[in-house]
């Protein structure tokens, strides 16, 4: 029997891997045979994730790194073995209507959602840490296709991600390196509740999802596996909606 989307012998970097979608991506890609380099700021949670990773051949690396720190980025990239894949998942949400956007939150969201990704990719490309045929996956958001109230800054950061992915895909195509973005609808990982949305509001919002449920972290992981695998070798520069039909209505 053929395993279609195998990640056997692939060396993969996942950012924001200590919880939520990033943690699920790490776990599921390891199950497909990948060797993982998982990155996050919280050592306890990061080690918890590493302990849950299936080990096929080589041990996985858990790397503490504050992606907002240029020194941390330099150190991270310096110590990486050449990569077959990257999942840029680290991100943050902060809801506020435009009148009450705080300057500090504009800076914080742009930093973690796009600027740190650009800096990381710049260093990885410069230091030639991507193998020919590698695949880069950005976790963007369906919010870039369908606006919701209170999300303007977050949407702007993810819009920047979408634009960056296309330029990156074009620049790296000659090396057979691909870049794509997944645009998930709402995945309930707890991140939004920290940001001022109540459970009642979440329940009411569910009616906007034709398939009748919010996303699970695994939904995003499975598409990530496809994009990281050799089977998607003709796909680059695309923004893929993955939203239970949310954007249809």
């Amino acid at each position, binding site marked *: 029997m053929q395993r279609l989307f195998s990640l056997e012998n692939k060396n993969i970097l996942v950012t924001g891997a200590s919880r939520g979608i990033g943690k699920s991506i790490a776990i599921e890609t390891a199950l497909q045979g990948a060797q993982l380099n998982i990155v996050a700021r919280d050592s306890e949670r990061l080690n918890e994730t590493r302990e849950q990773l299936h080990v096929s051949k080589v041990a996985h690396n858990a790397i503490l790194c504050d992606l907002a720190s240029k020194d941390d980025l330099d150190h991270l990239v310096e110590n990486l073995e050449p990569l077959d894949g990257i999942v840029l998942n680290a991100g943050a949400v902060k*809801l*506020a*209507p435009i*009148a*009450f*956007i*705080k300057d500090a939150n504009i800076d914080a969201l742009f930093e973690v959602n796009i600027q740190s990704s650009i800096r990381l990719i710049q260093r990885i490309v410069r230091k030639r840490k991507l193998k020919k045929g590698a695949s880069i996956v950005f976790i963007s958001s369906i919010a870039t296709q369908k606006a919701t*109230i*209170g999300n303007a800054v977050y949407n702007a950061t993810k819009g920047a991600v979408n634009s960056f992915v296309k330029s990156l895909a074009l620049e790296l195509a000659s090396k057979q390196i691909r870049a794509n973005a997944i645009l998930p609808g709402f995945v309930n990982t707890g991140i939004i*509740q920290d940001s*001022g*949305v*109540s*459970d*009642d*509001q979440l329940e*009411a919002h569910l009616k906007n999802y034709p398939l009748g449920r919010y996303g699970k972290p695994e939904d995003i992981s499975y598409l990530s596996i496809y994009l990281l695998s050799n089977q998607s070798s003709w796909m680059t520069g695309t923004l893929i909606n993955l939203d239970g039909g949310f954007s249809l209505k």
Partner: protein
Amino acid sequence: MQEDFIQLFKETLDIEDKEVQITDQFKTYEEWDSIANLSVIAMIDAEYEVIIENSVFKEIETLQELWEAIEERR
């Protein structure tokens, strides 16, 4: 200070002409909806550098209680 808070609250809900008392159960206002809810929490964060947790905000009924929650967290 409490007067300033009521004024900010009225601006946030765009109800400057409405008679608002500190004892009002503001979630019963006809103008109250999910956007107002989001706006008030964001206004408090922006103006007072205070984050009111969802679980706390859910239990709050009057402006007095909301003001006290802000004061406790400043």
